[in-house]
C-alpha cells in the first residue's frame, strides 16, 4: 500500500477550506438578497400607497367622476353622482375600467346630511338616489384604503322644476399591496 504524504493532506485541507469559504460567501449573498427583496417589496408597497393617496385627492377631477359644468360653473373636488351610477353600470357590464386607475375599488359614502343606516345604491334594486353608499365594483371586498372629502351632486326634480342637490361625501380608494 502507498503511504499518504503530508503534501496530499494539505491539498485536501485547502480544498475543503476553499469550498467552505465559497459556501460561506454564497450564504451571505443569499441572505443579503433576501433582505434586498423584502426591501423592494416594501418600497413597492410604499409607492402603491403614495399613488393611491394622490389618486384619492385627484380622482374627483377625473372626467369619469367630475361634475364639470353640469351643476353651473366648474367646481373642484365635486363628483357627479349620476355619472358615477352610469359608470357603475358600465363597469358591471364590461371589464373595461377594471385596471384603468390601477386600484381595486372605489367607494363613495354620503356623510351629510347624516343618515342612521347605510344603504348601498344597487342597480338591480333601482334604489338610486334613495341610498347613501356607492361601490363601483360589488364583487371585490377588502384592501387598504385612502380617502378624501368631496361634494357629491346630482339632479333632482321637485315636481315643478329640476334642481341641483349637492351633499358632503367621502371618496375612498381601495388598493392592494404587493
Amino acid at each position: 500500500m502507498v503511504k499518504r504524504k503530508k503534501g496530499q493532506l494539505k491539498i485536501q485541507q485547502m480544498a475543503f477550506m476553499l469550498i467552505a469559504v465559497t459556501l460561506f460567501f454564497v450564504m451571505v449573498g443569499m441572505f443579503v438578497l433576501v433582505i434586498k427583496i423584502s426591501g423592494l417589496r416594501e418600497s413597492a408597497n410604499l409607492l402603491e400607497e403614495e399613488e393611491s393617496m394622490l389618486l384619492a385627492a385627484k380622482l374627483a377631477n377625473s372626467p369619469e367622476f367630475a361634475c364639470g359644468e353640469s351643476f353651473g360653473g366648474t367646481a373642484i373636488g365635486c363628483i357627479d353622482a349620476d355619472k358615477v351610477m352610469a359608470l357603475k353600470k358600465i363597469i358591471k357590464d364590461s371589464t373595461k375600467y377594471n385596471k384603468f386607475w390601477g386600484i381595486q375599488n372605489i367607494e363613495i359614502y354620503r356623510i351629510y346630511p347624516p343618515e342612521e343606516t347605510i344603504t348601498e345604491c344597487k342597480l338591480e334594486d333601482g334604489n338610486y338616489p334613495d341610498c347613501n353608499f356607492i361601490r363601483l365594483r360589488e364583487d371585490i371586498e377588502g384592501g387598504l384604503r385612502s380617502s378624501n372629502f368631496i361634494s357629491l351632486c346630482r339632479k333632482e326634480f321637485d315636481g315643478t322644476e329640476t334642481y341641483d342637490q349637492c351633499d358632503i361625501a367621502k371618496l375612498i380608494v381601495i388598493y392592494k399591496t404587493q
Partner: protein
Amino acid sequence: MIRAMNKKGFEMSFAWLFAIIVGMVILFFAIFAVTKIMKTEEGILDVRTSKEFQILLNPLETSFESAIATSITFPVETQIINVCDNRSSLPFGSQKIKINQKSFGKFTKTDLDVKGFPNKYILTEKIIQGKKFYLFSKPFEFPFKVANLIYMVPSEKHYCFGEMNEDDLDNIKDELEDLNKGNFYFEDDGKVHPENCIEICFNGNCDGIEVNYQEGKGYVTKNGKTMDVIGDTLMLGAIFSEKEIYDCEVQRLMLRVGSLAKLYKEKINFVSRANCNSNLGSQLDSLFEKTQNYNGDLTEINNALVEPIREIHKEADCKLW
C-alpha cells in the same frame, strides 16, 4: 547536443497551483456576481425613478387650470424614453416612461418592464435627454373634457416661437409666456435668441416646425411629417412631440373619448328621472362607434360629430358635462 537543464528554475508545488486555479475561479464568479448585481441595482433604480416620476405627474394630470407648469431635476444626466402603447394594453392603451441614468459616463440600459398608466398622456419626443425638464399640461376637450395632456421638454432645448396670428393664437401665446420657461422665446420678447433655437413658424415656411392653424384646426409639419391638429392642446402636443408618439397618443385619446361618450349616453338614463332630458343620445352613439374604429380621421370626426354635439350641448338646459 543536449543542453544541461537549468536547475535554478522556479518550482511550484501542486498545492500552490491548485490554490491559484480555484482562487481564480472563485474571483471570476465573485466579479461576475458583483457586475450582475450592479446592473440589476441600476435597473431597479431606473424603474423606481420612472415610477416615482409618473406619480409626480399626478397633479398635472387632473388640474382644472388651463395650463399649469412644473419642473423636475434629476441628480445626474437622464434619458427619458416615452413608450406609448396603443395596441396591446387595450381598452385604453398605456403610457410608459423608461428612465436611463448616466453611470460611469454611459447611460444604463434596463430591460425591466415598467408598469404603464392607462390614464396618462405624455407628449414628448421619443427620447429626451438632460438633467432638468420642464413640464406643463393643458386639458383636451373633444367635445367634453377627455384628459389633461402633459408636455415635457428638456431645459437645454430652446424653442423660438415666431409671429402668431392674434385672432387664432393670442390665448396660447399668453399661456406660453405665463409659463415663464427659460427655454421659450417669443418674437417680441427682447431676449437674445440662442443659435440652436428650434424655430416654430406660424406664417410661412421655415427650417424648424411649421404650424398651419386657423379657427382651432389645422396641421403641424415637423421633420417632414404632417400631423392633423384640433384645438390648442393638440397643436402644442404636435409641436413638442413627434409623429409616432403624437399619433399613438391621439389614438389612445380617441379610445377614451369613445368610453366617455358611452358614459354620457348612460348618464342620460339616470338624469331623465329628474326631468333632465337630453337629445344627444344618437350622436354620442355615433361618436363611440367612430372613435373605437379610429383610423386617423381626426378632422372628419371633429367636423361631423364633435362640433355639432358641442353646439347642441351649449344650448341645452340640462348639461351632461
